[in-house]
């Protein structure tokens, strides 16, 4: 049985003491990041990549996946107890979670969030294990044209969902693509935009851009708004566990949240935040006690928390099987894997089975660890909020500069870090999302090469992109996703045109 063989291989890798330690460290750090408001999983992973230098790739990805999952878990705790979401994907959890805590039911709310996350995380891992090898085997037939259009589709899907404004998201993606052109061009060997600076010949270091745009700009935003908001923290009263009635109401919500989160947030690439909003919408339509939503209904915690974790797992499927990140966080993980010398994608399952299956097994273990970490230790996590902001800011600055410098021992990188920190701050002030920049930067080079390889193969004919069926399919997908926001206008226009639009 290939299935059990692979799983056995995976556990033999994941259960080594050192990898268990990295999984634990990852989920621990992730939970801390999740609890701290403002430091999202993207910032967290970017900041912590330097500690993976020198680790074997498997340990490094186990650590990063642990941080990713942990942050998803931790975000819910502050939503429920302080009404301050630690992550954008935990915003929805505030609606009912905080109300439950006010009614003295913080325990069941936290438990529902943890259990929902556990169920969804396990589900996503299971699906990755079942369909991952098939998807990867299928994608092995992809040549440069398919890769180009697949990456184009990935880029447009994430861009179209990245911010409130499509124009601003497109602008961000373009900045990322422009950054990716710096350095020696692979197809011609000619340096581009290096201005005679030898350190720029290999392009901008991905980590410098990521830490600058996320971590350092975070600091600047915090400093600009330096005000210690007094947060009322609710005590945890009563039991920690769910009652029989809670279980009866939460179970269907867990299932709905997991499925909707997995498909909308993971497979369709909408991301964890959209997935949690989407699943809350489903609860409003389908839950038995839908009228209670917003006043402290357990479904309102169970479904979105399941959804955001399922989405996180779904995004990893894209990353590992196709090499296409489905979210900003997985884009950062892709960058980190490339730095470790691993090219995520279909070949990974063939060439590095111990890596892929070790990661999958460690995700099971990580999910179980999180359940244990989160429920009994919830009091400790809340204490993290007592860390004064100025101290936190100092630590972020310290780790940013330390991390960037340890990479190449280059002082030029430190200046670039500052430049990108300030750029990130300005972008935030202008409400331009930073995630598409990272995505554009990570995919830009691969995408350009795939396109030019295709054109070399076809002797310069662009028809190669539409005459190959999968390439055509991805191309259409890209067009659909980028025009998505305008459909409603087209609909309105058509109705007007036909004069049949019923007046509201």
């Amino acid at each position: 049985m290939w299935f059990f063989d692979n799983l056995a291989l995976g556990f033999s890798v994941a259960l080594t003491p050192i990898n268990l330690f990295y999984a634990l460290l990852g989920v621990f750090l992730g939970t801390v990041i999740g609890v701290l408001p403002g430091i999202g999983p993207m910032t967290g992973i970017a900041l912590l990549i330097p500690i993976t230098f020198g680790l074997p790739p498997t340990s490094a990805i186990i650590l990063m996946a642990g941080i990713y999952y942990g942050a998803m878990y931790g975000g819910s705790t502050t939503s429920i107890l302080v009404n301050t979401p630690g992550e954008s994907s935990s915003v929805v959890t505030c609606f009912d979670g905080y109300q439950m805590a006010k009614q003295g039911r913080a325990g069941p709310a936290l438990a529902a969030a943890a259990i929902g996350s556990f169920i969804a995380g396990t589900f996503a891992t299971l699906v990755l294990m079942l369909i991952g090898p098939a998807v990867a085997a299928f994608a092995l037939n992809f040549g440069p044209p398919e890769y180009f259009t697949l990456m184009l589709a990935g880029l447009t899907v994430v861009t179209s969902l990245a911010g409130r404004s499509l124009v601003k998201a497109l602008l961000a993606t373009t900045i990322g693509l422009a950054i990716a052109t710096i350095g020696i061009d692979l197809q011609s060997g000619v340096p581009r935009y290096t201005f005679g600076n030898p350190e720029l010949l290999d392009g901008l270091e991905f980590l410098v851009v990521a830490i600058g745009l996320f971590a350092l700009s975070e600091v600047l935003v915090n400093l600009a708004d330096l005000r210690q908001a007094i947060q009322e923290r609710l005590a945890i009263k009563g039991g920690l566990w769910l009652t029989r009635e809670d279980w009866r109401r939460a179970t269907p919500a867990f299932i709905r949240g997991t499925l909707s989160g997995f498909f909308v947030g993971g497979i369709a690439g909408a991301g964890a935040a959209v997935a949690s909003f989407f699943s809350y919408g489903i609860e409003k339509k389908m839950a038995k006690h839908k009228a209670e939503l917003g006043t402290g209904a357990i479904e309102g915690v169970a479904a979105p928390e399941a959804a955001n974790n399922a989405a996180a797992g779904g995004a990893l499927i894209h990353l590992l099987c196709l090499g296409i990140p489905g979210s900003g966080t997985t884009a950062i993980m892709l960058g980190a894997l490339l730095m470790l010398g691993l090219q995520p994608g279909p070949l990974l399952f063939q060439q590095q089975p111990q890596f892929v299956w070790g990661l999958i097994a460690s995700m099971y273990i990580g999910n179980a660890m999180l359940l244990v970490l989160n429920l009994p230790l919830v009091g400790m996590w809340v204490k993290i909020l007592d860390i004064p902001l100025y101290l936190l800011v100092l630590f972020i600055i310290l780790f940013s500069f330390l991390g960037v410098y340890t990479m190449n021992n280059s002082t030029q990188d430190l200046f670039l870090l500052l430049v990108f920190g300030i750029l990130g701050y300005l972008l935030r002030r202008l409400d331009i999302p930073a995630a598409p920049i990272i995505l554009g930067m990570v995919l830009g080079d691969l995408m350009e090469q795939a396109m030019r390889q295709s054109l070399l193969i076809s002797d310069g004919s662009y028809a190669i992109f539409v005459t190959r069926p999968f390439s055509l399919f991805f191309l259409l997908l890209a067009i659909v996703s980028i025009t998505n926001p305008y459909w409603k206008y087209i609909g309105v226009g058509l109705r007007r045109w036909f004069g049949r639009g019923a007046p509201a």
Partner: protein
Amino acid sequence: MFDKRIVWIALFALIAIGVTACATGGGYPSKALEIVAPAGAGGGWDTLARTVQRSLEVEKLYPQPVTVVNKVGGGGGVGLAYIFTKKGDDYELVVYSPPLIINTLNKTFENNYKELTPLAKLITDYQVIMVKADSPYKTLGDLIAALKKDPGSVKIAGASSPGSMDHLSVAKLAKAAGVEPGKMVYIAFNDVGSGISALLGGNVTCMSTGAGESIAQLEAKTVRVLGVSSAERRGGALKDVPTWKEAGFNVTYEVWRGIFGPPGMSADAKKWWGETLKKMAGTKTWKESLEKLQWVDAYADADAFAKFLTEEEVSYKELMTATGFIK
């Protein structure tokens, strides 16, 4: 009786020796050594630098600490710029391979490598040309014939940009066979894995890559290796693969790796390293490492290495002019 002058001379001589001894710590080498790897950890240059470091330490050939420092970027240019700031410093070494010449000729490097002090050529590796196992091209002759007939019909994959080793090695072969190298279609892939995947997916005709990189695919019988660039047949997995010469094209291609001192290294230090590296190349630690890494011993002393580099430069200049990388 003693002539007082002799006592005085002896005294001054003693002081002079003492001062010199303090300055040089009892002759070369008296200080810690730094070996520059002009690329990131894990690559070929880094592995060589660390293998030299280990051999010097384990075999007790260098009495002081030896460290390896990675100077990453610019295809080795950052490392070269660094070693040029160490002019006359006898405690700096650097490892390089053909890109040292290639990137000087195409003007990627700002410094001229000829100012470096060549100390020894240490190892070498070879290039291969391979096709998919079910390819209609059975021999190197078949492939070259197709190239001659219509250069555009043969898509050649490699894992580095045009004008680098994967490209220039095929160009050298093609030129020897009478094909215009500038007319070949060379497609660069980001790494060996994606190049192989394009080869196996039928998207390209053949692939030019390092001999070591072909072995896993060859053993899995997914590819056929048409020829190897060495002068004599290789052993192991490549024992049935003909050399380019055997296939009828009188040309070889060597991916050498050697070690250099900074510009203006003192004659004493140069002599000391000539002897020490020769000793090192004969040690058990060094030989075991080569076997483990599947590297071929290609030791040549400083003079032979310098002569070899001159020949290499002539050959690359010709090749790069033919392919349009020197204008």
